[in-house]
């Protein structure tokens, strides 16, 4: 919330400065802003609605059940899949991860879940591929998935 306010205040301020210095350039900037937003808006809105459905189905309770019950590699794999397909905001991920740890879920699985939910974006892939094309988007997501396991293993060693 604080960042939303900060972002909007900053933008407003820069917009006023821009307007005072050059009206024509400012109009051009706003036109460009609208053009790029209009360009990506259909994709953005699709993702938001899809995300709504996903978050409703994969509620924190369901995720806890899925990750918390299975141990070993199966648990880690489930964590990676859920983390990758959902784009859960940190506000939900971290308390969920903390609660899962407390209830005895595997540390590695939880870190993989946290890491993949941040770095790997299956739902956001269409937007990523629109800008980076497929090869770079696939490479980046695959590496992010692989390194989520690396992070989990190293963190496990350090924090135990």
């Amino acid at each position: 919330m604080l960042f939303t306010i900060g972002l909007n205040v900053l933008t407003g301020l820069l917009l006023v400065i821009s307007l005072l210095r050059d009206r024509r350039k400012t109009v051009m900037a706003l036109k460009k802003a609208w053009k790029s937003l209009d360009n990506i808006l259909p994709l953005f809105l699709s993702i938001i609605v899809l995300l709504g459905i996903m978050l409703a189905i994969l509620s924190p309770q369901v995720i806890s059940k899925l990750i918390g019950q299975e141990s070993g590699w199966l648990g880690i794999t489930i964590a990676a899949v859920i983390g990758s397909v959902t784009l859960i905001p940190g506000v939900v991920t971290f308390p969920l991860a903390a609660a899962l740890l407390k209830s005895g879920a595997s540390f590695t699985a939880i870190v993989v879940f946290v890491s993949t939910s941040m770095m790997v974006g299956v739902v956001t892939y269409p937007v990523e591929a629109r800008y980076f094309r497929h090869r770079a988007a696939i490479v980046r997501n695959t590496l992010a998935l692989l390194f989520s396991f690396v992070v989990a293993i190293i963190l496990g060693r350090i924090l135990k």
Partner: protein
Amino acid sequence: MMGLLKRYRYMLAIVGVNIILLMVRPELGLKAFKMTESNSIEILMNIPAIFILLGLLDTWIRKETMIRIMGEKSGILGIVVAFLLGSVAAGPMYATFPIAGTLMNKGAKFFNIIVFVGAWSTTKLPMLFFEASAMGWRFMLARFVIDIPIILLIAFITEKMVMGSEKELIYANVNEIANS
């Protein structure tokens, strides 16, 4: 009107799925619509500002300046700027890509772009505080320190994998998006 319908056909199809869900499992369907509503509100509060900033950046910052700061020969400076830009950012993951596109059009190096995306997704400052309060400072700091070299490594390998013609195609593609 038809054009608008065509552009939003995927979104309408997904809304259709949600309506079906509403009929089959009313509770879930309603929850999904509520999620969409609150996410849309968040988007409406952040996205216009982000795109206006991008428009201003596009018109006011000269290409030479961006190349100096984040371009091929920007070295450590470019990496640090990419990192800081990503870390102070607010907004959901999918907002990074249009920003990345604008930066690329201005001449930012692809390596730095992937660093920026990595920082945006894993070391965002507002999220770090939240992480520390939920998981503890030790967890947050350890993850932060481990993630920095990993972000660089991912950027390094990704850039190597698209060397040559594919990278030219990527830059041509973002240029086309900007001018379409």
